[in-house]
């Protein structure tokens, strides 16, 4: 440990690999036949996905009564899962946009993958509001379009803001991702001799020519997109938190919600990205592209956001006491010691206590330990949303209408299935597209930039 010079910025890519070798390495999983490991992983995620399909089939055929939701707990697993998955997506945009604006070069190795995760996480999240309406084939009513009823949507409702926020977020993330992929499609197009692959890459690569007259505008657009995606990602979880904060339910009606939710989203998102990247770098031999230093930096962000989330928990309690409102006080005491106390203490131990281990440099750089901590963080963040939603709804103003929520097997099928949905997309992405941006990584290798460029 004494040999580490912390004043020196480390190179993003370890060693000085020749550029062509990088191309070969990154496009290897695409070109080569899928390994046995890949098929095993795909089978597992596919089986989980089929649980989702069955769960949704039951829900659509028999109706939402298949779930444990009932008045007063009208929102339960579905909205918990929605907020959880949207939050997972936020890390991707944070890595690709905010760290880009902050000129954090270590993001290059992980940005493409994290962006892909954003898209799949938002897709997974988007499932839940759709299935919660019960008849997702009528979901077009969520958008203001000229219809026979000549009636418009309610623009004063946070739920409508959510529709706009999540759909905008999905589209902008997809564009951002695709713009980043264009040069890589062109590189793949030039590499391959396979006829169908060549046609596919030619279509998606749009005939990109690596012209510097293009690169100049391209970099400007990338900057603009990053500039837009940054406030966008903050707005999305802010608006998600408005779904709760704008209501008057004790435990939801709090001004701390927007920053608290954004911090939580980044926290859980980084945990998920870290988990998946640890597997990816091992499976595809990307240890020198997705370096230990990168993982350590992600752990530091998890430590920061985990502490912010812990602060928010404490502040919620303080404000409940300080407000002097007996109902508000009751809600929080009920949260920690009521029927859902077990969920609350899972949340506290996973979210507040476990990331504090990252103060130790040794733990930050030990892969198995950080992997386990990140899993705990994701469990804790799921329970955070569960605690907020279910404990507040089940004990509101009127004791005569109190009722506990008990999930059904369909609820669990859909929860497990949502992971299957997410990981199936992720696996197909890892097989079909370059999971590391070739153009960006090449640009950050030592010696790839002119020595007298002044940069």
């Amino acid at each position, binding site marked *: 440990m004494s040999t580490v010079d912390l004043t020196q910025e480390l190179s993003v890519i370890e060693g000085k690999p020749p*550029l062509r070798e990088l191309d070969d390495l990154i496009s290897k999983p695409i070109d080569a036949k899928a390994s046995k490991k890949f098929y095993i992983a795909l089978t597992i995620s596919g089986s989980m996905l089929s649980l989702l399909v069955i769960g949704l089939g039951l829900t659509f055929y028999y109706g939402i009564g298949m779930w444990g939701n009932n008045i007063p707990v009208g929102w339960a697993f579905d909205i918990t899962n929605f907020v959880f998955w949207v939050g997972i997506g936020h890390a991707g945009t944070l890595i690709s946009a905010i760290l880009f604006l902050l000129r954090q070069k270590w993001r290059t190795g992980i940005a493409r993958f994290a962006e892909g995760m954003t898209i799949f996480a938002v897709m997974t999240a988007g499932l839940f509001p759709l299935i919660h309406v019960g008849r997702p084939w009528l979901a077009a009513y969520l958008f203001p379009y000229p219809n026979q009823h000549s009636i418009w949507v309610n623009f004063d409702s946070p739920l409508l803001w959510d529709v706009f926020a999540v759909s*905008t977020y999905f*589209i902008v993330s997809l564009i951002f991702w695709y713009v980043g992929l264009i*040069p890589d499609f062109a*590189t793949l197009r030039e590499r391959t001799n396979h006829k169908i692959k060549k046609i596919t890459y030619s279509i998606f690569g749009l005939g990109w*020519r690596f012209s*510097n007259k293009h690169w100049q*505008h391209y970099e400007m*657009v990338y900057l603009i997109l990053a500039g837009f995606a940054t406030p966008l990602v903050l*707005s999305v979880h802010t608006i998600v938190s408005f779904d709760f904060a704008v209501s008057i339910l004790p435990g939801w009606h709090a001004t701390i919600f927007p920053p608290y939710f954004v911090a939580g989203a980044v926290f859980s998102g980084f945990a998920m990205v870290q988990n998946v990247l640890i597997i990816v770098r091992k499976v595809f031999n990307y240890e020198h592209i997705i370096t230990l230093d990168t993982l350590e930096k992600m752990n530091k962000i998890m430590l920061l956001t985990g502490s912010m989330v812990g602060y928010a928990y404490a502040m919620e309690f303080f404000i409940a006491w300080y407000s002097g409102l007996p109902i508000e006080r009751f809600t929080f005491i009920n949260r920690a010691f009521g029927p859902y106390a077990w969920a609350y203490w899972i949340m506290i131990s996973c979210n507040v206590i476990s990331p504090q281990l990252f103060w130790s440099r040794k733990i930050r750089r030990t892969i198995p330990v950080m992997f386990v901590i990140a899993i705990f963080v994701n469990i804790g963040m799921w329970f955070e949303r569960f605690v907020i939603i279910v404990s507040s709804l089940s004990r509101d103003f009127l004791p005569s209408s109190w009722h506990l929520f008990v999930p059904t097997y369909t609820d669990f099928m859909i929860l497990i299935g949502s992971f299957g949905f997410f990981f199936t997309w992720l696996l197909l992405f890892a097989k079909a597209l370059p999971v590391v941006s070739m153009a960006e990584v090449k640009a950050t290798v030592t010696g790839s930039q002119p020595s007298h460029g002044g940069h």
Partner: protein
Amino acid sequence: MSGKILYSYTGIFDTPDQIIHAAEKAVEEGYTKYDVNTPYPVHGMDKAMKLKPSKLGYFALVFGLSGTLSALLTIWWMSAINYPIVIGGKPLFSFPAYVPIMFEVTVLSAAIMTVVVMLFFFFKLPNNSHPLHGTVYMKKVSADKYGISIQADDPKFSESSVRKFLEGVHAAEIIPIYWDEEEINHQNKIFEPKFIVFLAAVALITSGVTYFSFNKLMYMVPFNWMMDQPKLSAQQQSPIFADGFGMRLPVAGTVARGYMLYQFTGQPDSAGKTLVNPIPVSKESLALGKTKFDIYCSPCHGYNADGASRLRGQFPNPPSLHSDKVRTWTDGRIFAVITEGQNIMPSYSSQLSVDERWAVINYIRALQRALNAKESDVQ
């Protein structure tokens, strides 16, 4: 080489320093139609090529602001003009609630349009038939080499001078690039059998899917708008009961809530003596009485209760309600007639509730008084 049309002369370099140097020299030589191709953006190339800063930022600004404005105008028109609904006691135009959506639409339109403008208008993509495509040059600059391409239509272009220039900047390789003749002479053939078959397949699939979804799918569970429900509709059969009727009679001996038994069946005179009109004459009761009278009584008795009705001549004419007999009847006596019927007139107890019958009686009294007004009424 003969017959081929030259597109450009290209030089390939191994290091980023060399390509920057080559670009700088190309500008010095006065070449205008040239391009530099590198696998990733090389820092300092904009300066070396003397490119003007990208103007795409202005497009983002304009499209973003027009997104903001159109969102605001649309929401204002929808919620304050086209279909105004008061929600939660808030003003019809509640600006703060619109800020989130305005922001999202700003970002959406700016992001989409900036990328669209860049790809399709600035770069004129997609373009897979550019002469540089499918060349060794493109293969190299897409991976790890750096290339410069000086076009044949440059005013300063001549094969020997460009070759000399590229040698002068130490290009590792010099490759001439020709237009692909096949691509130049290629014409889209609309009547190609392949294309026709493709069109036919698209038409078939589209119409098939449309037919299936609108004529079949919409009538299947769970897409059928809840038309299929386990409850019984009126007049439907039910296998649960022995007689097979879905609609049931009330249990014998029970009385429905609010139901008052009529005690004077077959005794209209005692009804006339005992029953008193509980509904005082008021604007509301007269209005109700008029509505009900016009619906149920006027077909035979006429709108003015004089018997001049729409059904006159088709049935035995009902007597005028302005006769002395009816005028001197008590309200209770008329009530008995409405409730039980009389001669050919059937009972109206199932059409008119008790209160409605009294209201109709009030209205009949008003009609009678209108035709036989007293001196005092005129004043």
